[in-house]
């Protein structure tokens, strides 16, 4: 079947890209001036959150398209993208926390980026819980779509509110993970890793949607 073969090809492509990414992270990238080698975590942390945003954008697309067309494949897209998005968000938060420990001295700070990413996680874990607790597929798709739309619309609102909330309690110029401006070669490495993550995301999405399709027919 062409679809399965394409998915498999995508998977191998993703593995190759990830290897290239790792080589860039550890081989090509030099030891950073201020933070030392810990800064390499950024090459994992930033592509991860970018992939999560892509995923949640697809959740929004799938949700709106489902409500308009009532075709189950859109719901499969939303559900699959949400699951993978939660995975990448969790990776973002964990890597951000681990990065913060030697640089800031604490496992968690309520800094704007970590906090709004955590809220993102809460919203979409709630989305997955809703899906898990509704048995009837048609109702599940409808309800999830509404929650998905509200969740996505809330993302920019959450960002501003958390950022302003922190601005009151913390000096704006705070050096730490992600604060310093990035030189060109650093952006290049982030790009390489981001491409690898996007390929991996596409592979996961393809497999997950196949599963959703098969389960619907079962």
């Amino acid at each position, binding site marked *: 079947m062409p679809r399965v073969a394409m998915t498999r090809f995508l998977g191998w492509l993703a593995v190759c890209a990830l290897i290239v990414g790792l080589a860039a992270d550890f081989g090509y990238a030099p030891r950073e001036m201020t933070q030392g080698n810990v800064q390499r*975590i950024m090459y994992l942390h930033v592509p991860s959150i970018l992939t999560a945003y892509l995923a949640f954008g697809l959740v929004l697309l799938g949700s709106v398209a489902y409500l308009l067309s009532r075709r189950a494949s859109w*719901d499969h897209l939303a559900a699959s993208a949400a699951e993978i998005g939660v995975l990448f968000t969790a990776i973002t938060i964990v890597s951000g926390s681990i990065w913060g420990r030697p640089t800031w001295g604490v496992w968690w700070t309520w800094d704007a980026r970590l906090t709004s990413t955590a809220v993102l996680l809460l919203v979409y874990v709630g989305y997955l819980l809703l899906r898990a607790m509704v048995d009837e597929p048609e109702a599940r798709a409808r309800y999830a779509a509404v929650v998905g739309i509200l969740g996505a619309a809330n993302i920019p609102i959450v960002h501003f509110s958390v950022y302003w909330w922190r601005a009151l309690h913390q000096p704006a110029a705070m050096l730490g993970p992600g604060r310093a401006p990035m030189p060109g070669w650093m952006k290049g490495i982030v790009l390489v890793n981001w491409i690898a993550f996007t390929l991996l995301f596409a592979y996961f999405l393809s497999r997950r949607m196949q599963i959703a399709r098969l*389960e619907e027919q079962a």
Partner: protein
Amino acid sequence: MNPMPDHWNYVLAAYGLAAIGLIGYWRYLAARARSLSQPQRGKGRRA
């Protein structure tokens, strides 16, 4: 500026946990696909 001491264990922890998460999800997908291709015995599971 003093260079910070290397914290390779943190780097390893971050990349390691990410790898565990991603590989774990891949295995979860494989397991679910396998259970679907086997003959169904009860109700179909949900998406």
